[in-house]
């Protein structure tokens, strides 16, 4: 009997962990299931009144790696759809350097091990001149050593800080705003707009939540903020009144909640129950309708950072606006769905590579590398990109907006 009990605990612990990993993957990327985006250069396809020369010769191959199945499928599905659509658009408008473009899409099933195999295949067998992906940060981190060793440019669609914080970064660039940028945006709002100094942090124990906490603790002082309490929870926790009560006893002036659904929604409801009326600042992990559906009335007044695609009207740059509107229209026509953040990442990845190859006039890896590093003012759904030899993130705090939930919908918070 005792043996069975011990076995049981072990098994369950294993199951629990499995669940966590899943949540983590999702989290890392779950930046903002929303709406928006652009269409860099690839958009003005359909107006083809002019005759376009059909592309000829050997195709230029991009190797793309998305998580189209498995736990992160919700993220990878639209990335795949966007990549398929973009391949068609590129060839319709005459290809790239006069040659046809082929985007070979592999599915890593949300599994970093599969990502390694597929990346090798894309480079060795398909002859990819550049790699796009992966969808989830663990896959990207597994692919990074391969592209670095082979000297093939890789543009990733995932957000973990480590991807570009840790060397080597010579061959990897990023399209989504990285997690640290979202923290910076949120803390700017807290210190400048709310004008307060004492904050508390409630975060998910998974990779997304704990890296958020680490970033907040690291940079709080720069914004004149003091973290007076920090508590954590597990993604599927049933009730958060205990950590919230403890947080309340430290008398913070605002609560920052860093996690993805459903935890932040439980926290919002529990704050209502406890009568805590300090401002609730969320992460980009709740930039989706699910949070509003779950938290209901408790979601009202919650503020969080997100890409401008969530509220396309917030885009002030005319070039970016045109690109984003064009992409939304084209994507809706091709798939019947509104593009989410992740489709936007795919758009930016392809667009940045196409832009670099056109400027380089070559598909040699070294030429693409140099051209990518020289990218300036390229506008897409995620923002306006300026890469350099040392900055492979390209975005800045101004590419994010603060969003408030009002009447079950999103409005600009400032």
């Amino acid at each position, binding site marked *: 009997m005792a043996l069975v*009990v011990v076995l049981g605990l072990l098994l369950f612990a294993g199951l629990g962990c499995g669940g966590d990993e899943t949540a983590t993957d999702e989290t890392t990327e779950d930046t903002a299931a929303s709406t928006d985006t652009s269409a860099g250069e690839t958009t003005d396809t359909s107006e083809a009144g002019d005759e376009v020369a059909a592309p000829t010769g050997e195709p230029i191959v991009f190797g793309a790696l998305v998580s189209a199945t498995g736990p992160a499928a*919700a993220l990878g599905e639209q990335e795949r759809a966007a990549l398929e659509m973009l391949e068609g658009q590129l060839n319709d408008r005459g290809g790239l350097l006069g040659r046809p473009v082929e985007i070979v899409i592999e599915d890593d099933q949300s599994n970093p091990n599969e990502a390694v195999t597929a990346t090798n295949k894309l480079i060795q067998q398909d002859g990819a001149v550049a790699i796009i992906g992966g969808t989830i940060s663990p896959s990207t981190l597994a692919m990074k050593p391969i592209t670095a060793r082979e000297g093939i440019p890789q543009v990733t669609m995932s957000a973990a800080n480590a991807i570009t914080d840790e060397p080597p970064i010579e061959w990897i660039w990023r399209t989504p705003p990285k997690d640290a940028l979202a923290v910076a945006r949120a803390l700017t709002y807290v210190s400048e707009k709310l004008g307060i100094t004492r904050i508390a942090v409630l975060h998910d124990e998974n990779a997304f939540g704990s890296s958020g906490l680490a970033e907040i603790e690291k940079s709080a002082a720069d914004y004149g903020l003091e973290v007076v309490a920090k508590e*954590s929870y597990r993604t599927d926790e049933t009730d958060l009144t205990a950590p919230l009560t*403890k947080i309340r006893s430290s008398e913070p002036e605002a609560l920052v909640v860093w996690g993805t659904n459903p935890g932040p929604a439980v926290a919002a409801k529990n704050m209502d129950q406890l009568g805590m009326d300090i401002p609730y600042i969320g992460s980009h992990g709740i930039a989706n309708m699910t949070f509003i559906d*779950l938290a209901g009335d408790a979601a009202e007044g919650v503020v969080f950072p997100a890409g401008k695609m969530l509220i396309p009207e917030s885009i002030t740059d005319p070039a970016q606006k045109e690109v984003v509107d064009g992409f939304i229209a084209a994507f809706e026509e091709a798939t019947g769905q509104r593009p989410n953040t992740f489709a936007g990442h795919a758009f930016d990845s392809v667009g940045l590579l196409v832009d670099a190859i056109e400027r380089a006039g070559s598909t040699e890896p070294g030429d693409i590398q140099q051209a990518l590093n020289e990218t300036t003012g390229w506008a897409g759904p995620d923002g306006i990109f300026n890469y350099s030899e040392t900055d492979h993130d390209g975005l800045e705090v101004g590419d994010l907006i603060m969003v408030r939930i009002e009447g079950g919908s999103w409005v600009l918070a400032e």
Partner: protein
Amino acid sequence: MSLQEFLQFVFAGITSGSVYALTALGFTLIYNATGIINFAQGEFVMLGGLAAVSLHSGGAPLALAAIGAVAVVTVVGLLFELLAIRPLLNASILAQIIVTVGASLALRTAAMLVWGREAVALPAFTERAPLSVFGATVVAQTLWVLGVTALIVIALQVFYRRTMLGKAVRACAVNPMAARLLGIPYGRVVLLTFGASAAVAAAGGVLITPISFMSYSSGALIGLKGFAAAILGGLGSPAGAVAGGLTLGLLESLSVGLLPWSGTSGYKDAIAFLILLLVLFARPQGLLGQRSAQKV
């Protein structure tokens, strides 16, 4: 710590603990009849919650959605017994337990395919402001969970102690061979137990979804805590399952509240399970379990 804060930690513990207790009851039911620990128990809870949300959003009134969800999951429990457990009825208990592990993974994946990955919510059974006691608050839904748990425990105690069928069920757990020799239809008893256990789990899932939401992956954590609660209370005792659940919930929330420094919520599982181990060292049969004499 003020009285208000202390009470709030107690209420938090009771809220989580009532969920654990209800899940532990399902473990108890199956263990009592078969000696099997059903590791798919948390998945039955999850299915109950998700089924209720689907029925409710499909237009069914809340009460009907709740009953419908329990019915659906009961059928799943019966099918589970017929398809997965029945063929192994003569194999070792260990083999049967391992089948339940496989079933839990299969059910979770199936739920992801049917309902997707997002968590979903259900309205509270009683729409009213949280109840306040000395400034500490508790939501009405928690009282629903506690009330239904109490009803189920009473019903089970009566069933096991006062009815012939209940006694037959217990006999099956003690010695299946002897029970069969005495004419107890062992197979049907096992089938009945799985159905009842799935029903209890589904009721739990429906009741807690308004408090904590439900997603395809929620069953893992709930199952783990429910299992720990059942062990703590003493496997096989319905009252013990409830005592174990509430004790575990209180241990967790008080370990957050009573430790003075910040950030202790990350260690609450570790603290709770450490205490669970200590309890089992001192009382291997659990809080309310009966010590069984065993010939060595």
